[in-house]
């Protein structure tokens, strides 16, 4: 095959590719190779510049020894890792709590009709209150307020109190994100679902929410990653989590390397989820839409 011109009615052999198309493909390959080369080079240059600036700064020696000391790093790792496991446990429970409460709140806030005004009002008050209040304050109020009520004789574990505080704060954020998603689903979808005989609740669960969640997945994951970090704040209640474990080590050695250990572990914890989000979003788009070139 040479060019695209053919006799009328002649069938193309789709196995063979015209020189024109081959040329286009070669050009695109060269362009792609060039872009990758440029971005690699700029990354290396950037890293070198940062490195040179760091190493040549007057306090670098001291900084390296107090923040990036390999010996203290090895020493701190086991305890901080143990602490992180506690963070992960609290996080796992809190995520479930957040999901349940946030869906309920978002569901209530998107109820229509004057009958539901009191419920809607309460839900709105809830989200306004906990979105406005700094998480640290919520932690203190729950962490020290609930035990002060003296509801039980037993000591309430601080991890439980921390979990409650996390659920309160984050369910209000997530509820708002979900509500935005629910409102972005066209009303005709709900109409179609109800026409099939699905109840209000079933329509929400089977038709509206799945679409809403897809629309706001990046925002939800953002909240989740943010929650992964804030779970480290339960240390202020005295829970021996990764942050508290690092603190204990720092107090013993006057070396700040354990904080770096904890910080890196938190990054390592959130990184897979960040990548997962990107992958999920991309797959979603491939599956449900004919993307075209834009």
């Amino acid at each position, binding site marked *: 095959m040479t060019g695209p011109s053919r006799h009328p009615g002649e069938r193309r052999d789709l196995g063979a590719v015209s020189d024109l198309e081959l040329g286009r493909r070669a050009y695109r390959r060269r362009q792609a190779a060039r872009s990758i080369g440029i971005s690699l080079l700029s990354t290396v240059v950037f890293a070198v510049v940062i490195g040179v600036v760091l190493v040549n700064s007057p306090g670098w020696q001291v900084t390296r020894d107090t923040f990036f000391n390999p010996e203290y790093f090895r020493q701190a790792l086991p305890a901080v890792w143990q602490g992180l496991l506690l963070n992960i446990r609290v996080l796992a429970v809190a995520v479930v709590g957040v999901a349940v409460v946030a869906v309920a709140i978002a569901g209530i806030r998107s109820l229509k009709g004057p009958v539901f005004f009191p419920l809607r009002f309460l839900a709105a008050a809830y989200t306004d209150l906990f979105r406005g209040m700094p998480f640290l304050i919520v932690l203190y109020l729950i962490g020290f307020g609930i035990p002060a009520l003296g509801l039980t004789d037993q000591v309430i574990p601080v991890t439980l109190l921390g979990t409650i505080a996390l659920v309160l704060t984050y369910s209000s954020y997530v509820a708002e994100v979900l509500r935005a998603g629910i409102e972005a689903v066209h009303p*005709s*979808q709900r*109409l*179609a*679902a*109800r*026409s*099939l*005989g*699905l*109840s209000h609740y*079933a329509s929400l669960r*089977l*038709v509206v929410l*799945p*679409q809403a969640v*897809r629309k706001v997945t990046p925002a939800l994951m953002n909240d989740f990653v943010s929650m992964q970090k804030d779970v480290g704040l339960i240390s202020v209640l005295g829970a021996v989590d990764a942050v508290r474990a690092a603190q204990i080590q720092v107090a013993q050695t006057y070396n700040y390397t354990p904080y770096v250990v904890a910080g890196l572990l938190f990054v390592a914890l959130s990184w897979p989820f960040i990548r997962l989000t990107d992958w999920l979003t991309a797959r979603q788009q491939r*599956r*449900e*839409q*004919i993307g075209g070139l834009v």
Partner: protein
Amino acid sequence: MTPVLQLRGIVKSFGSNHVLRGIDLDVSPHEVVVLIGASGSGKSTLLKTTNLLERIDDGQILLAGDDISDPRADVDAVRARIGVVFQHYNLFPHLTVLDNVTLALRRVHKLARQECQERGLALLGRIGLAGQARDYPDRLSGGQQQRVAIARAIAPDPELLLLDEITSALDPQLVGEVLDLVAELKQSGSTILMATHEIGFARRVADRIVFLKDGTICEQGPPSQLLDSPGRAETAEFLSRVLH
């Protein structure tokens, strides 16, 4: 035989806009009744009230003899007995074609998964889309999507099928495949109440055509009579406008 649908004195207003001013209409089993009328004459509103998507201001709606306008009627159960197809298909984009068709079977009629799959696939085969069962709706052409929407509506074997201008969002060359499917549904004995602007199609499938004007039934009758020798001046005037 009890009519599938009996509308008695249906009144519906939106504020001061009196859309339906007392509609009496029966639809017998296996009958295809076509609503025609100018834009805004209340065809969609009549279909929506039948499916309880709009509440009537007065009158009574009986489905196979049951008063479904009674506030004690179970709205979801009523809707499960009626199939609806909309102008804009409204397929669920997050579900595959097959899951769209079987959703009501699974979640409303609570059939076993296996049976739902079989019925869904059989239905898709019947509308010529078995190969697309696992695709998502956005991959299909408009005509294919509308056929899936029809399959979704008829999957639970509804007693009554409501079709609201199901071809008016389609490109002209796709209208045929959808109308052919409706003609086939008529052959297989479905009871249908539909609104359309396709007068030619109304002639082909309708047992009875109902002409709505000013919120009332101006005239009704078999296609040949109503379309070829309308008894009223308003009908003749409307037909001359839409046919030319």
